[in-house]
């Protein structure tokens, strides 16, 4: 069995986060999970690095081969584990290394966005951008913009956004049992 400590300790983490509201004491520093496709946006982020284009340290990049690999559950999981925003970067329309994965991402994100709205998650917290391999500058700009927007928006408090903490916890427990339904077995070839 894989170590699921991170999963089960989640509610405690969140309870702790809710209990210690220290935003008043120091400026809020958001955390953004960025899913970048390896061919365009991840390469663009490398280019931003090569060109020393500094941007907000809020960004945590997860590399995917294609934005089409983006399972909406990844976004939900990122929010659940404490991300304040999720950024998805793919190739421009027509430029997908796999022909049309970015279109798939576009559709899934549209659907997901409406779902997140019902959960009380603001639309600004999920952003989809087409960034080609040569657009290092766009990585910098988009990351900074999003970090700034989230700073103004404040932390994502799933528990206080309409849902009761208990409901959220139950929801999470239920969700955990869905998305990780024994991943070891599910991934056995």
């Amino acid at each position, binding site marked *: *069995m894989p170590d699921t400590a*991170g999963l089960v300790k989640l509610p405690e983490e969140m309870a702790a986060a809710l209990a210690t509201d220290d935003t008043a004491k120091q400026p809020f520093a958001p955390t953004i999970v960025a899913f970048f496709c390896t061919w365009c946006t991840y390469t663009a982020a490398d280019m*931003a690095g090569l060109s020393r284009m500094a941007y907000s340290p809020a960004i945590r990049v997860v590399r995917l081969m*294609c934005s089409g*690999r983006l399972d909406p559950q990844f976004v939900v999981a990122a929010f659940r584990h404490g991300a304040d925003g999720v950024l998805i970067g793919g190739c421009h329309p027509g*430029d997908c290394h*796999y022909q049309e994965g970015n279109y*798939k991402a576009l559709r899934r994100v549209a659907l997901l966005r409406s779902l997140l709205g019902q959960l009380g998650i603001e639309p600004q917290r999920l952003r989809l951008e087409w960034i080609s391999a040569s657009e290092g500058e766009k990585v910098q700009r988009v990351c900074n913009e999003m970090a700034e927007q989230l700073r103004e928006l404040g932390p994502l408090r799933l528990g206080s956004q309409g849902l009761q903490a208990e409901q959220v916890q139950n929801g999470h427990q239920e969700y955990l049992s869905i998305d990780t339904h024994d991943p070891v*077995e599910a991934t056995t070839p």
Partner: protein
Amino acid sequence: MPNAGPVKVGVYVCHCGLNIASKVDVSQMVAYAATLPGVSVAREYKFMCADPGQELIQQDIKDGLVDRVVVASCSPLMHEATFRRATSAGGISPFLFQMANIREDVAWVTDDRDAATEKAKALVGGAVRRVSEHESFERRYVPVHPEVLVVGGGIAGIHAALVMAEAGKHVYLVEKEATIGGHMARFDKTFPTLDCSACILTPKMSSVRANPNITLWTYSDVESVSGFSGDFVVRVRRRPRYVNEDLCTGCLSCIDACIYKRGRTDDPWNEGLSKRRPIYMAFPQATPSVVVVDPEACVDFRTHKCPRPCVDACERNAMDFDQKPRIEQIKVGAIILATGFHTFDARRIPAYGYDRYPGVYTSLEVERLLNASGPTNGELVMRDGSHPRRVAIVHCVGSRDANTNAYCSRVCCMYSLKLAHLVRERSGAEVTEFYIDLRTPGKGYEEFYEKIQKEGTRFVRGRVAQVTEEDGALVVHATDTILGKVRRVPVDMVILAVGMEPQPDAEDVRRLFNIGCGAEGFFTERHPKLAPVSTFTDGIFLAGACQGPKDIPDTVAQAGAAAAEVLAMVDRGSVEIEPATAFIDAAVCSGCRTCVGMCPFSAISFDAATNVATVNEVLCKGCGTCVAACPSGAAQQRLFTDAEIFAELEGLLYA
């Protein structure tokens, strides 16, 4: 495979000299990594990619301390292959490895050292959690088809094709024009040696024609490309030239016979400085030596009433007015793109008066005027029939200019010096060069510059602001930045040293071959220094100016390098296939077939008997779209399983 027992993750943090260490507190990171669940060893080293760094990993694996590896260093696009090799050399699957990019994603883009260290820790946390979920599997290989495709028959394509053909490989050389030779065939002399361009190029063109290992298809376009490295399937459309290529001997009697005794349409080979007849051969040494009928100009295509004297004149019965486009389908193991460049359109800078004042020429037009086989047989005659006495050469037209192209085209300074020499030699005209800086880096280039200075060419340092016409003469306006004053120089002829741009169809070609372009539109090499002829698509290589502006020596060197890469690949006989392919767990698959429609490569088939979908892992390119769509979690992607990505997220956000 379920993980047997607890994992032992080795974390190796790279200083990358000071690249990482100056922004990230490496020691703090190592101490932190050691506390993460599953981590058995945490070390730091100055350069992990160097041999001693890699040996650290190998030794720890061999000593049984480590069975999974995390290297926190640069981008995986840079060194993932290196560390996978090191992991494999230690004796475990190369895929029990994960990289944390703390250079491009952290050290180089974060101003604050504490913030950088915190972010680097998070990335390492993600990598450690992720690699704990990694599964062991081996590299997979497919055989390489030994034939090769070269796209573009300029000097780059010609050289690459010859090198590979001489090594015994069969090469398909596809060129869109009716003849190979490209831009080089249109130049008069080459710098800095001043040898005649045709004299050094045409023997190579003939060798292409004569080499039994080369199949030459001119007047042809690549229509589609499918397959993958080692096994590409390419369809080539051969446009009709209305002449049977196998029968035509290039005697040109059809051209003599044509009812049109003079040219009817602008001849692109001469940049429109002369007219072309409806049946033509671009230039005397055209290869293949086969004429072409221009259906736009030939009257028979419109009226069907031409007596067709060309048909009667051809003793070999090579004329074929019923020719249709033909599609050839070939299989090749590797592809070299040598599609060249396009010169900057001088109309885009209206202040220079091109296309408004007949005395303003582009450098390529002047190359044709000076060429012995050009429209004026090598004599410098202007459009109005006069001979210029004073000539200005304007540098950096469409180069080093924020309004057009920011980059330097690299060749214009040198060819401008060459043109100054040739213009003076042929016409005795007085030549003034207007330049920003003179860039002459290359063997014998600076010496050539000195030679041109001594010959008496004048040099004015200053970008030309505009060209005007006053009292019948052209006036070049420039600020002389050495004298610090505005100069107005009257001349008879202005030569605009136009820069190099990507081909107008570079974007289509890029998509066709699934490779990348930089912002300016040139094809992107895999690494600017260490993989200059490879692309991000395995099996596709670059040669010549399609990758960026370059002169003939650099182009030939790059073409040779691309040929060598292909030869290495073909002779190795097999290539590794994408490891991150999708697979479907038959026990979980509900047979809904959602994945089948998702796959852009038709790699998924459905077996009605077992009610289960399966992925052909040779056809699968590893995008993972089917995996994201699978409602039951039966579809997974190697190296990007749900479990791995969820683990990475947890690590990133909690660790």
